[in-house]
């Protein structure tokens, strides 16, 4: 199994995300944002957290226009799996691979703490190893994690069971407590919380392990 993690100027969770994939059994390639093609034979692309391009203009906006994101969009269009975490979620929304936007937290403050999440669907390759409705503890660290989507978009997410995770105690004003969403084909997921920061006992929690394990199981079976 092969994963790639995209590295933008300002990414700071790229190695953590690579570690998360690696621990689950993936060979991981780091791919620089100026590259125009992804490695051959990839199973999944990770778009990591951080502050790509200094969050200039809007979080994720400049990264979304980078050469490698065209290749990632083409990979997703071919049915490839893509996981975006934190800034990576913002980038996937800016590339329109996922619906909605991430706005400034309603309390205006940067929030960095472990937050309880509810697994809202297990019908995805990212969440299948969790129990339905399970409550998990995953760290968040963001200033712009306030997920917003219009009424029609929210109705579609609900009708198609595409809300992956919700916050138990909505920390940032996100509509419908949404912490993570899936694409229409369920192969692209973005989430603000950091599963790769809860993937080893030394992190203080391991509730993120099941996400990478879900992916590994699904891709081995495929």
């Amino acid at each position: 199994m092969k994963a790639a993690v995209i590295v933008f100027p300002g990414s700071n969770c790229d190695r953590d995300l690579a570690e998360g994939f690696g621990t689950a059994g993936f060979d991981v390639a780091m791919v620089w944002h100026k590259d125009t093609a992804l490695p051959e034979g990839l199973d999944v692309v990770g778009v990591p957290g951080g502050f790509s391009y200094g969050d200039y203009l809007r979080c994720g906006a400049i990264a979304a226009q980078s050469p490698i994101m065209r290749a990632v969009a083409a990979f997703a269009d071919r049915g490839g799996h893509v996981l975006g975490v934190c800034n990576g979620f913002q980038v996937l929304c800016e590339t329109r691979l996922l619906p909605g936007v991430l706005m400034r937290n309603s309390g205006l403050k940067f929030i960095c703490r472990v937050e309880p999440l509810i697994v809202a669907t297990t019908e995805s390759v990212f969440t299948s190893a969790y129990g339905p409705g399970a409550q998990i503890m995953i760290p968040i660290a963001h200033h712009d994690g306030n997920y917003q989507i219009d009424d029609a978009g929210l109705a579609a997410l609900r009708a198609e069971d595409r809300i992956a995770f919700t916050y138990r105690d909505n920390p940032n004003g996100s509509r419908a407590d949404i912490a993570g969403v899936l694409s229409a084909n369920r192969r692209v997921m973005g989430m603000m919380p950091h599963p790769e920061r809860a993937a080893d006992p030394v992190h203080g929690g391991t509730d993120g392990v099941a996400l990478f394990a879900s992916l590994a199981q699904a891709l081995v079976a495929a």
Partner: protein
Amino acid sequence: MKAIVTVMLKQGVLDPQGEAVRSALGSMGFAGVAGVRQGKVIEMDLDDETTEAQVAEMCEKLLANTVIESYRVEMQP
């Protein structure tokens, strides 16, 4: 020539920063500030042949996220 692009959150989209500014103005004693919306202004120096339609395309593709933001383009000689 120049283009001045003003990007604002659409009406109905909650603007927590604008709301914080409004609240700060109130607590400083400025009465009667019913609402504050915060946006951005982007000034561009352009080749003389650049058309307003090209600037609008820049707005659609990068300068504004049209899911939540609207933009206004003002071309200046």
